[in-house]
């Protein structure tokens, strides 16, 4: 069984971009969600040792997801991938426990460097 990874993004194009950027030989089980609430459910179901998290999503946004994970001391490694690139957003997600903030459009090199830093590559 591979590492459980969840991609939370309401855009199918972005979810696809993240999948494409992942190493082909990486042993992972990928689960996709389209809003923050589904992302929390995926974490609770053990489907997200790593969570790729968009910030702007319906029902529950990425900031709210981070707060829930932060309050419940979840061990999930969260990598935020967002189009909101203002310094305030980056600072807030890091203060809420995200491992890294990556800008959209996602650069494959940045993602792989991040996976290496986490120790998953």
């Amino acid at each position, binding site marked *: 069984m591979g590492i459980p990874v969840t991609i939370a993004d309401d*855009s*199918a*194009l*972005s979810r696809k971009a993240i999948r*494409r950027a992942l190493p082909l030989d990486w042993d992972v089980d990928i689960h996709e969600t389209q809003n923050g609430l589904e992302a929390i459910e995926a974490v609770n179901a053990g489907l997200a040792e790593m969570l790729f998290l968009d910030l*702007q999503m319906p029902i529950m946004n990425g900031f709210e997801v981070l707060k829930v994970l932060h309050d419940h001391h979840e061990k999930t490694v969260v990598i935020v991938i*967002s*189009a*909101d*690139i*203002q*310094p*305030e957003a980056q600072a807030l997600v890091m203060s809420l426990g995200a491992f890294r903030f990556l800008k*959209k*459009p996602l650069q494959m090199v940045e993602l792989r460097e991040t996976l290496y830093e986490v120790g998953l590559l």
Partner: protein
Amino acid sequence: MINLSEDERDALQEIMNISMGQAANAMARLIQTKVTLSVPAIRTMTPQDFQAMIHGMSNSWFARQSFLGALRGEVITSIQKNGCEAIAELMDFELPLDLSATEELVLEVTNILSAACLHGFTSQLELSAQLAMPAFYYPGKITQGADWSSILLMDVDFRIEQMQFDTRVLIGLSEGSTDQLLIPIRALLES
């Protein structure tokens, strides 16, 4: 009217979202204040619908900036009149604003937002488009000189929270450009 599939609409919305994120960041740097964005709305409409929408925004100033190249169309920026002095203060304009200074302010904001969002858009899709100079204008003249037989409207609100005023960016594409835009989007979806 242009018909977009659900996947094409999703892709266009996400590309717009990324582009507008870059525009919001440029704006936030200029005024040193956090800018929040709405989720971009993608709509197809007739020029008549568009005129009616613009006429309903009587509390705003407008500027237009056309772009040419593989993509042709116009970026239209609206700024709520009652927020102009607040943003002018952040941009070190002398207050109170007269009409000339108001025009300068609107054109400057338009230039920043248009350049950032068009660059974001074209760079993601590897298309070329060059912006002309922005021009201040009044509703009623919006389609003058433009080939807008059908309009693909991409609409985003920029909100500067503490001031409670909206800046809105609309991108209208001419019909031929919509085809040009959809080619790389379909390629992205199929890859």
